[in-house]
């Protein structure tokens, strides 16, 4: 039987470039002058500049991680930290310049907004170019704006929460982010409010040899609920681009937050993102994560369960193809009684791609009668790819139920044979199996995004498994 071959994910719909037509592009490199200039361009108050400068100092002191993928290709001297597009933030798509609107049209954002979103934020390079929120949500007291505006309009809230769940000393790329951050989203959902349709922010990095450092800060107050969707993409260039965003989530007592991400950065992107959530009593955080792009990714969303009965669920998939090294996973700290952490992770590697599932679960003494269940499966589609599973845990109380299991393998010949005996071609059979493998993740997404995710896993088959 001939060996199967599976084409690269069709990224043409994302891999289009617009002219690098900016209003302002920072010189490449990172130093105090760059940081001060960014702050000045944004007209920031002294307190935010102080944070940036402190973060720059920490960045210079910290080393690169001694584990994970090789980051030696990254050279900040080749990266511009700030690119301002030629546009003022708009609240209707008609006010967005044609070339930028065309970008988001191609990505389906305006269409999605009409059909199924309560609000949209669209970021182009370093600035948010479009923001909208349905009137009825505003009337309920929901705040959804870009982060730069939040710093000006709600400084006291931002001061209370900004870079707190993710401290600037967390690691080198958090410090970098805090020094040069720009754009991103701020969401506040007041008590007892259900945001019935998702809010979405989409991040597009168009400019070559540059970085995107958006900051997302979401506070869901007591007994409220929100589904937030984040999407990102970029065209492919020959030089490295960098994404070092930061997501800080606060889920208050009894609240629920679902945070979904479909990440499809281009294959020249280094994606070194940090995401953390603090969950209070009775609160729940659901992470849904699809990682398909990037040249190198290091991404480990983290839940800190600080309140009794807090719950964290993580469902994620990563798909690494040629020249991709996706090092992803999940972290949790169970810090209160009767908390629960559930993890379901899938990874697929092909054509020399490297996937690594890496996690750390810490159950403290306070986490009596808590439960943890971790399940990770890896599918290898050829013999030149790599799949590693590196899950660690630390248990400090005996009043816990903790279990972890993982599997790695190829598509079962028996399963393939069974489906083909039912009349499916080998191509269709493999496609069905892989979609089934990814189903636990795609079923958690709104339909349009599940379709997008399945498009990202589109397969074309020749022959059969050898």
């Amino acid at each position: 039987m001939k060996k199967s071959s599976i084409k690269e994910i069709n990224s043409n719909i994302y891999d289009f470039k617009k002219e690098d037509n900016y209003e302002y592009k920072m010189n490449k490199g990172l130093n105090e002058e760059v940081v001060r200039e960014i702050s000045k361009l944004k007209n920031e108050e002294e307190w935010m500049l102080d944070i940036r400068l402190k973060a720059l100092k920490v960045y210079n002191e910290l080393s690169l991680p001694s584990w994970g993928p090789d980051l030696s290709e990254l050279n900040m001297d080749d990266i511009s930290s700030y690119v301002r597009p030629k546009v003022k933030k708009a609240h209707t798509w008609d006010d967005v310049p044609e070339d930028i609107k065309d970008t988001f049209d191609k990505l389906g954002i305006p269409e999605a907004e009409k059909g199924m979103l309560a609000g949209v934020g669209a970021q182009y390079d370093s600035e948010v170019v479009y923001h909208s929120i349905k009137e009825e949500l505003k009337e309920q007291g929901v705040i959804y704006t870009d982060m730069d505006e939040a710093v000006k309009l709600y400084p006291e809230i931002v001061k209370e929460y900004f870079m707190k769940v993710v401290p600037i000393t967390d690691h080198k790329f958090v410090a970098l982010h805090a020094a040069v951050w720009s754009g991103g989203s701020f969401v506040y959902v007041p008590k007892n409010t259900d945001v019935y349709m998702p809010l979405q922010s989409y991040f597009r990095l168009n400019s070559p040899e540059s970085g995107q450092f958006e900051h997302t800060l979401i506070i869901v107050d007591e007994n409220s609920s929100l589904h937030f969707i984040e999407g990102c993409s970029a065209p492919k260039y020959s030089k490295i681009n960098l994404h070092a965003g930061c997501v800080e989530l606060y889920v208050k007592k009894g609240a629920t937050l679902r945070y979904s991400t479909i990440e499809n950065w281009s294959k020249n992107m280094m994606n070194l993102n940090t995401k953390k959530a603090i969950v209070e009593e009775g609160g729940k955080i659901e992470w849904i994560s699809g990682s398909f792009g990037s040249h190198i990714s290091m991404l480990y969303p983290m839940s800190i369960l600080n309140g009794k009965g807090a719950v964290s669920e993580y469902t994620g998939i990563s798909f690494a193809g040629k020249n991709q090294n996706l090092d992803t996973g999940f972290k949790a700290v169970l810090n209160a009684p009767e908390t629960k952490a559930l993890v379901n992770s899938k990874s697929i590697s092909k054509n020399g791609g490297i996937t690594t599932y890496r996690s750390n679960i810490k159950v403290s003494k306070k986490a009596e009668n808590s439960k943890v269940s971790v399940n990770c499966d890896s599918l290898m589609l050829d013999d030149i790819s790599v799949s590693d599973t590196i899950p660690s845990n630390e248990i400090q109380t005996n009043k816990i139920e903790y279990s972890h299991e993982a599997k790695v393998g190829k598509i079962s010949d028996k399963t393939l044979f069974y489906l083909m005996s039912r009349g499916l071609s080998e191509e269709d059979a493999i496609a069905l199996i892989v979609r089934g493998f990814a189903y636990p993740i795609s079923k958690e997404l709104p339909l349009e995004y599940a379709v997008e995710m399945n498009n990202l896993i589109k397969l074309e088959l020749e022959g059969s498994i050898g």
Partner: protein
Amino acid sequence: MLLNKAVVNTSNNYGINHISLNDELIKDNISSFNNITSNNLIIKGNDGIVNIKYGLNDYLTNQANNNSNYKKNINIKEDGVLSFTFDSENNTLVENLNITIKENTDVKLLIKYDSVDNKDYYHNGLIKINLEKNSKARIIIVNLLNNNSCNLLSIDNCIEKEAQLDFGIFTFGSKNNVINYYSCLNADNSISNLNSIYLRGENTLTDLNYIIDLYGKNTNANMFVEGALTNNAKKSFKGTLSFKKGSSSSFASESENTCLLSDEAISKSLPMMLCKEEKVMGNHSTSTFKIDNNKLYYIMSRGLSEQEAKVLIIKSKFEKALNMINDEELRIKIEKIIDEGVNIYE
């Protein structure tokens, strides 16, 4: 001193990349050790250097190669036994054993470490085992040292074509136990099974780093680790199954289960699975738990005390590994240690 480095690094915050021991625990002054008994073994001197892939660290490997007080080449005739007993005259042991299992033979070997009193003894062992083609070996290492001793052990196995190794590591002694175990399935159709059990208690530290590399086609590796921790015992476990390129049609499985008998005990685990070959099947699982109340209640309702019920449950978890022991006297001794070691700890 840093020992027992993980095969793949993780974040230093997790505290599991290696274990740190006070330098004072590592002895440099190695006196003679003569309290050794052996049975059914052909033992000859060995002047050469024994090369191993990992080991605890370079310092300890060098100590075992250059400052050993018991450095031997060993062939096993049938059921071999090698026993080291520590006392005040024999208080430091740095043994270096180079064991060869000849082609087409089927042998068993029991290596036992014991002590007569509660002094703090030092043991740094380096054991290299070569299984030639189509050989079979069952090797068990039992640690019954007192709870003040330091037990450092590096084991390195090389398994050739169609050979099978069943290894048991039974840890019921020592204050500090740091063990590095490596098995290399070097050739096609070879098998490596590891059964490791431990029961550790007050003020003890156990660091286990078990690594199996699968190189050959159609190889099979199984790693079962069952343990129980009482009082404020600390344990960290790193288990690595690594499918190398070319190991097609191979299968590996790892299971690590830790019963926490006390709320003061701390358990860390890092079960790793590394895969560079498509046509393989690998799985691993790890669990940490306290004794299920329903199970306890059921057994107590049959007339056993809580202590007896807990002992029964722990022994049942160790049963598969303990069945590897033929020596009835040793088995009874271990079971007595389990009886005494499993406390009722709220």
